[in-house]
């Protein structure tokens, strides 16, 4: 019996360490698939902007919306959101630069979203000076195999 709880504790610690809390998404994001996708360089130094059609259509309508900070937002909310993320990620790097300047914004958007909305978000990010972006996508392993 004693070893049982030890093993379970070990599992528990394992999951506690690898875990990052699942984000509460209010919009459906079925991301596109690509063959050239790569991992993000520094996943801990990133924040995510979700764009998609709200899950609760009756409450929020069926037009694509932006979600930051666990709530549906307008595009004007993006600059304050980036400022907040910057202050959270602010720390001194090895080479003397501030990590907040290297902050990457992950754009997790649904396939069907029109580019007009995406470009509005990108324009806001430019205004905020958050120039590093990352288009989140799934790897299309099948297509990649066919190409080789």
């Amino acid at each position, binding site marked *: 019996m004693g070893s049982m*709880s030890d093993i379970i504790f070990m599992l528990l610690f394992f*999951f506690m360490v690898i875990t990052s*809390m699942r984000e509460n998404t209010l919009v459906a994001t079925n991301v596109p698939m690509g063959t050239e996708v790569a991992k993000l360089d520094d996943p801990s130094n990133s924040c995510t902007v979700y764009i998609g059609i709200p899950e609760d259509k009756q409450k929020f309508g069926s037009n694509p919306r932006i979600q930051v900070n666990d709530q549906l937002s307008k595009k004007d909310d993006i600059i304050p959101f980036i400022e907040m993320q910057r202050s959270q990620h602010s720390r001194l790097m090895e080479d003397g630069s501030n990590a907040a300047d290297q902050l990457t914004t992950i754009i997790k958007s649904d396939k069907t979203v029109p580019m007009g909305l*995406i470009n509005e978000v990108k324009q806001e990010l430019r205004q905020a*000076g958050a120039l590093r*972006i*990352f288009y989140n996508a799934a790897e299309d392993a099948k297509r990649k195999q066919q190409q080789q």
Partner: protein
Amino acid sequence: MARKTPGLNTSSMADISFLLLAFFLMVSDIKTDKGIARVLPPIPKENAEKPEIHQRNIFTVLVNADDRILTTTTTGGLEPCSIDQLKDRVKKFLNSNRGENPLLPELEPTDIEGLGRINVSKGVISLQCHNSTSYDKYFQVQNELTAAITELRNELSSNRFGRSNYMDLPNVKENNLRKAVEKAVPMAISEAKPSNMGGTN
């Protein structure tokens, strides 16, 4: 007189940690963030001069409201292009391992540490899309552009260093060959503000 310490009842320990384990199992989300990284251009300062780019150095990729792609021809016109053709056209345009050709972008001999003097193409891909272009199509175009540039980098890497994947090249401060290859084949994509061209809505 030594007293016996009473044993601690630990039988519920396993139950409690099971509960905690179940909790973390449910809330955990092993991050598999994959995608394509890009750097946005900074907002230009007011009264900043626009850099003039020769027509021959620009390869326009237009995606209209119906998700159809148009690309520039060597004569300056526009022609339809399927997503499968796009990569080869971009590769042909950006390839710098060739002779001087007035129909293709200018080549600029540049000194790059690790590579020596090498021709760098001044070509720029101008990606323009309509406000109603779907994000999926835009992403597929970005995917093909990335594929074209990655293949050119891999070709250079395999010619010069015998590595068919430039990501395998050393990436340390003293000997950054990967960065050298990235400099020789830059990710030259410019995105104009989308207009309402190419569609009625």
